[in-house]
């Protein structure tokens, strides 16, 4: 089916998320929509999917204008969507998930599970998916959950399939499988809109590429363009895809985690006997697919979770008996994973957010027992730091929620790095940020490393891990699968992210190249010429 957008505009208040976007997706084509975080890709797709209604412009399917009152209408018209955050219910079975909303029923609305099950099996078989229709969603790995989402779309006869950042949660090998599936779907006549901000994937997969920036289409190109060209289009200026950094100069061991085991609130083991050892002045990135215990590890280091076994030592001082506040005072800097809920308090001003963990001590507090806040001192310090960290803002008295994600993150970094650190821990420090902010955050972390602070960074983005790390520890199901140098190939890391031990992963990767790895080699060869 052919999908065409003409001048689609979507505004939220005074902010224009999509500005007169026109786009044509031909039948049986993989059309990549490339743009950085916050460029308006997801808004556009939610508009096509009927979750938002456009303020202007029209959507045409096979040259006929359509308008949707909700996702139900879009699905009925033949549009399917796999959301970046899966729309699956953890406690449902695969069959229930696929049937939801389109349940085959017998008398009195009782579901005909046999029919629903057969449908799942039929689609699985057609595309060679290995999905158990009776498995519970929460027990499936993310890759399989994504296939359930694809089955969901196909079971409703989707002829235009929108994939929103589908590779964000996958290992390189899983990405490979997805690419194969996309190829099969295209060959069977399905049009695919592939949304991403990853340049390498676009070049390997897409038939055509539309680049959007700040809500508007800035160009349409072919996959033959080089990564540098695409990056330039996407960001609007020349960008360095890798952050320059000196080789690490590691000092003595200063931070150690020994045999750390942490249970989740449901008594499941989420961090399983983890050993880590870090030296001064090195960056250790914890890589892995989201949800393999990395976040819990970081939270335990800060003291938000209590481990059931193991110890955490900072310069031979046991952190276990210390409260969060005492750990911060001991020289721990922490950037939480979810900026908007854990990093900042949206309704507080920039100044207040800046002093959030220092408000009760000099120079920000004074008087007997430090009861009085010294507001002018706070403001001045916030002002100075905001300038140093290049925070784009009105005044420091504005609520922090008025800032963009990137600028909020800079305030968080300014706060955490304003103390003398002995350890810096950051969880997903660049999630959801634009390229400019990502560069800034990376540079800041490298500067902290060069000051001699051990930096522990949790990242699910393989690109970030490779770019930033001196060493990479890969976690899988709560365990550290292995710790490898930053020069390790993506393919090896990908296998490790699926639980394959490092040496075995190296052996396997040597014989099985992923599509993306081959594309990389090709790109390198081109650039060398």
């Amino acid at each position, binding site marked *: 089916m052919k999908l065409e957008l003409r001048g689609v505009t979507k505004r939220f208040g005074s902010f224009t998320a999509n500005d007169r976007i026109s786009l044509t997706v031909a039948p049986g084509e993989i059309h990549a929509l490339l743009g950085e975080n916050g460029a308006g890709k997801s808004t556009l797709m939610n508009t096509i999917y009927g979750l938002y209604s456009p303020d202007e412009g029209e959507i045409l399917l096979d040259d006929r204008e359509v308008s949707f009152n909700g996702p139900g209408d879009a699905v009925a018209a033949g549009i399917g969507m796999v959301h970046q955050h899966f*729309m699956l219910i953890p*406690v*449902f079975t695969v069959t229930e998930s696929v049937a939801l909303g389109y349940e085959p029923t017998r008398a009195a*609305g*009782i579901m005909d599970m046999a029919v629903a099950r057969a449908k799942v099996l039929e689609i699985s078989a057609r595309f060679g998916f290995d999905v158990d229709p009776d498995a519970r969603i929460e027990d499936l790995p993310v890759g399989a959950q994504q296939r359930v989402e694809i089955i969901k779309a196909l079971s409703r006869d989707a002829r235009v399939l929108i994939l929103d950042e589908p590779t964000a949660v996958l290992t390189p090998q899983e990405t490979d499988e997805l690419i194969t599936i996309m190829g099969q779907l295209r060959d069977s006549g399905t049009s695919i809109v592939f949304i991403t901000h990853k340049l390498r994937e676009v070049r390997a997969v897409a038939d055509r590429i539309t680049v959007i920036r700040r809500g508007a289409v800035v160009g349409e190109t072919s996959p033959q363009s080089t990564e540098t060209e695409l990056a330039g289009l996407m960001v609007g200026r020349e960008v360095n895809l890798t952050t320059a950094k000196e080789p690490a100069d590691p000092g003595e061991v200063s931070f150690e985690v020994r045999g750390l085991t942490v249970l989740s609130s449901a008594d499941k083991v989420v961090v*399983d006997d983890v050993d880590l050892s870090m030296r001064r002045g090195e960056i250790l990135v914890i890589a892995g697919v989201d949800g393999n215990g990395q976040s819990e590890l970081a939270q335990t280091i800060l003291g938000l979770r209590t481990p059931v076994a193991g110890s955490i030592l900072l310069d031979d001082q046991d952190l276990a008996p210390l409260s969060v506040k005492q750990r911060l005072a001991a020289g721990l800097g922490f950037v939480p994973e979810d900026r908007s809920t854990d990093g900042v308090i949206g309704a507080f001003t920039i100044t207040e957010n800046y002093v959030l963990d220092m408000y009760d001590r000099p120079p920000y507090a004074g008087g007997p027992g430090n009861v009085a806040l010294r507001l002018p001192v706070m403001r001045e310090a916030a002002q100075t730091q905001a300038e140093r960290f290049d925070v784009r803002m009105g005044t420091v008295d504005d609520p922090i929620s008025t800032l963009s994600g990137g600028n909020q993150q800079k305030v968080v970094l300014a706060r955490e790095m304003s103390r003398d650190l002995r350890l810096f821990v950051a969880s997903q420090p660049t999630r959801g940020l634009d390229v400019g902010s990502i560069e800034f955050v990376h540079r800041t972390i490298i500067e902290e490393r060069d000051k001699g602070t051990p930096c522990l960074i949790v990242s699910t983005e393989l690109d970030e891990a490779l770019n930033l790390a001196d060493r990479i520890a890969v976690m899988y199901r709560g365990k550290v*699968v292995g710790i*490898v140098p930053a020069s390790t190939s993506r393919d090896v890391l990908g296998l490790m992210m699926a639980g394959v031990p490092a040496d075995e992963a190296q052996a396997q990767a040597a014989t099985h190249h992923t599509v993306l790895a081959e594309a990389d080699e090709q790109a390198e060869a081109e650039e060398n010429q």
Partner: protein
Amino acid sequence: MSEQTVSTAAVQADPLKQTATGVRPISWKYPITYAVLAALAVLFVLTIPAGARTHFRLSSGGDFFEIPLVELPSRPAGWILAVILVALAGLAIWQASRRIRTRLWLPLLFGVLFVLAFLVWAGADRGAVIPLVTMLTGALALSVPLIFGAMCGLVGERSGVINIAIEAQLLAGAFLAAVAASVFTSAYMGLVFAPIAGALVGALLVFFSVKYQVNQIIVGVVLNVLIIGLTGYLFSTALTQNPELWNARQQLPRLPIPGLSQIPIIGPVLFNQTILVYLMYLIVGLLNIFLFRSRWGLRTRAVGEHPKAADTVGIKVNRMRVYNVILGGAIAGLGGAFFTIGQGLAFGKEMSAGAGFIALAAMILGRWHPIGALLAALLFGFSTSLGNTLATIGTPVPSEALLMLPYVITIFAVAGFVGRVRPPAANGTPYVK
């Protein structure tokens, strides 16, 4: 450079095989509870005087089969029960040490036997007869509003709306049932109006909590106060001034089911009841089927777990919630009718007396499952009935302590003693696009 090479020190042979179960500590709380209770039962038996006898009455007045009084020698009967209880406790401990999951029959059997042991002890040598059937009938009567209330809560909360206004819905149902039955001089008209009253309270709850996204707990509390105040006001004005017109007693007739009602012991308890109680069986049965096997149930659960996911497959989340809460309100309203026309009583001020909150606790203890909630509500009803019975026959245990039992169980239940309860993920969260 040594640590720059691949380090596999932290890697076990196969990380896949080493997950979860290995380190999880064994939970001893159930085995310990069983052991303590079994020890208590032994203690009971040891304090029974030699040669004492316990009398049970196994039938009530109009039964088909008149069973004579059952007389048991207290000590031997007590010993048999105590030994079985100790054995069951031992089984629970063994299962826990082997990490075997305990099946539901164990706590049920243990509970029944423990209560029997307790009764054998309490009735030993007192000349008093323990009216077993009367006690069970009382237990069911006390459970009926709780069961209706728990089903109401379940229908709402499975779709993601916390309903703390069950109390108000029961009370409104009791009130309107009494008034309608009195005005039309027909108990069955009360049965028609009671669900309407409950549904109206439910409609108010969704109006504020779904349409205006007011905090659901606050709306619920306010509705409770509103309905208590409103029915109390009408009671002390119109209903007291002209009780013949507005608040005359009407009772639903008992409809014994032929055959079934003649089964000894359980027949008169379960099958010599009013239509309201039969409706309750039907509602619990239907909910158990429909919640897990129908389109409505699948969508309800989807909306309560992950409303956005439901929205993306074209399910109208808020509409679903509105329907469910109103449906739940109607169920609770029907349950409220049991206080008045179900028992042949006139309406009295605040006559629901906190049953709505106990119903809420039964729903949580029953883990948002119709059968679980049913069992929990029966447990609460039974412990109250037991307290009442013991108060009349006189026992060494103060009856006030026994009347406290349902609330003690509630606190333990809600505090998570019965295992990690997992409410619907989006429970209490308004859905805004």
